[in-house]
């Protein structure tokens, strides 16, 4: 299989969907973006559940949709597996009957193959349970078993982890990745969570308001976001301001709302300055300026949130700013809402994007 080619133009209720994308065979792609960006609509178009005004879906040598030539295969004619956001398990059927639903053959054959599938995902003991009595993680496994039972050549996953609680999500994510690697299918994952996309896919399409705004690997998108939107999505701090050339071959950015920072990127005019939260360090407000970091903003701490062994500190500079620190330095700085500190980072860690 040489991959999937998708072109779709479709008037939706609130926006115009206009997308062209290509996923190489054997690769895992993710479409990320905020809710309402049109991500799920794209999946539905690939699966044949929605017919766009104009569109083309090519899978290897097969034409699934070509509105120009009047070709539009029905969903059941497309070798396409779709895992829905809340799994859409049939509530009136037991787990094995859910898996057997899409299988051909007589009852005995279908049951045997369904049980094999459930065993593959470690849930064969739940074969006779109805979906309502399963936990979120178990439902996800049954749904995966059901979707993969038909050996689809394209696998579509709509927010595969969002129905799980935060504790099971990380583990389920790694398991899902192993599963996706194990199948020969081309997979497209839709998610609103950049880190989920980075984990599951090697090719990421960032989508906003019906359009693909940037594509690349997770590392590429993080390091070279094409817009403030992508940067924000990839986890960057985004500061709006106006850039002008400054001494030492740097740019100086006058931030909206006050404060000046420097960057090694050269721009003139309205820009957004991007910096990753882990590049920012905090020091007491009255400290002497010892570090080599050129950028130093007085800030007020707004929130302190522990995430595992890291602490995310939300601040006002007065534009919103986020730093990630260890629990140790959070304690030694006595950080809590209301405390005033200085945020510092290097000019070399400051990316500029025109706005």
């Amino acid at each position, binding site marked *: 299989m040489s991959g999937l080619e998708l072109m779709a133009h479709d008037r939706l209720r609130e926006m115009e969907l206009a997308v062209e994308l290509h996923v190489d065979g054997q690769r895992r792609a993710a479409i990320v973006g905020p809710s309402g960006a049109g991500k799920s609509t794209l999946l539905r178009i690939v699966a044949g559940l929605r017919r766009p005004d104009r569109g083309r879906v090519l899978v290897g040598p097969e034409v699934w949709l070509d509105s120009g030539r009047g070709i539009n295969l029905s969903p059941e004619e497309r070798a396409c597996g779709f895992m829905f956001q809340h799994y*859409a398990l049939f509530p009136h*059927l037991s787990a094995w009957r859910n898996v057997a639903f899409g299988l051909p053959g007589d009852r005995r054959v279908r049951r045997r193959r369904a049980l094999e599938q459930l065993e593959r995902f470690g849930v064969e003991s739940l074969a006779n349970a109805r979906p309502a009595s399963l936990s979120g993680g178990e439902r996800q496994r049954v749904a995966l078993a059901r979707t993969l039972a038909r050996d689809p050549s394209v696998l579509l996953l709509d927010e595969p982890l969002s129905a799980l609680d935060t504790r099971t999500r990380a583990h389920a994510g790694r398991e899902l990745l192993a599963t996706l690697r194990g199948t020969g299918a081309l997979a497209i994952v839709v998610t609103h969570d950049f880190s989920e996309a980075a984990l599951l896919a090697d090719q990421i399409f960032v989508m906003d308001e019906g359009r693909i705004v940037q594509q690349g690997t997770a590392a590429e998108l993080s390091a070279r976001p094409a817009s403030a939107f992508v940067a924000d999505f990839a986890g960057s701090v985004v500061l709006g301001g106006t850039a002008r050339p400054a001494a030492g071959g740097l740019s100086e950015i006058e931030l909206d709302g006050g404060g000046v920072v420097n960057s090694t990127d050269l721009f003139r005019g309205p820009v957004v300055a991007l910096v990753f939260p882990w590049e920012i360090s905090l020091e007491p407000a009255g400290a002497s300026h010892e570090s080599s970091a050129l950028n130093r903003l007085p800030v007020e701490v707004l929130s302190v949130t522990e995430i595992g062994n890291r602490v995310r500190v939300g601040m006002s500079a007065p534009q919103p700013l986020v730093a990630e620190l260890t629990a140790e330095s959070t304690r030694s700085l006595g950080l809590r809402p209301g405390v005033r500190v200085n945020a510092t980072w290097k000019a070399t860690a400051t990316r500029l994007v025109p706005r």
Partner: protein
Amino acid sequence: MRRAAFGAALFLALFLVLAFLTLPIVAIFVHTSPGDLISSLGEEDARDALWLSLQTSLAALAVIVIVGTPAAYLLATREFRARSVVVTLIELPLVLPPAVAGIALLASFGPKGLFGGALDDAGIELVLQTAGVIVALTFVAAPFYLRQAQEAFAAVDRNLLDAARTLGASEARAFIRVAVPCAGQGITSGLALAWGRALGEFGATLMFAGSFPGITQTVPLAIFARFSSDFTSALALSGVLVLISAALLLSVKILGRSAVLGGGAA
């Protein structure tokens, strides 16, 4: 204090509702001994009326389910321009007085009605015939079923139907294997309502099909026929109808709850 008074008012309201709705039914059985009930079953025309009621209501129900289920599914799952008009038209018989329904049926399917000639040419006679009873029952009971079934289908998660399609099911198969079982409870309660309405149908049947023992005299018509001559036996037959209706309602509800409809499909 005020909160307690409101709570008491709620209970009082429920008590009044319950008393008003159940007292008349209780009264039937106060006046009718079990012996009367059984002896009323011994009369031939009472048995005929019961048998006829059962046959005609089941026949009407079969027609309603076979044609009404796909129609309700269409109304629930497709958007089209005249949809709300169609829904209103379908619900119209719900508010028609039975006498109006009877006249309307005569005006359309009677010998001099709109389709009377066509039916006559086809050799179909409805008026004063058992078939006419079935037509009358279908007319008055169908909206109850259609309404419930439509609501039940509309409540089925569309993703389930989409999932069925991506698992290789045609639209028809998704309807039979997923939509119908998932809407099973609503469908069965619609079935119970329609059946209850059909069993109790009186006015439209009387006007359209008449009241001939053994041919068109269903239980409600038989009760009315006895009412002027023999109140006790009318009461006894009423008691039998109440028991049968209650039993049907109960069994359909139990059937729906145990999801027999759903469990069998795979």
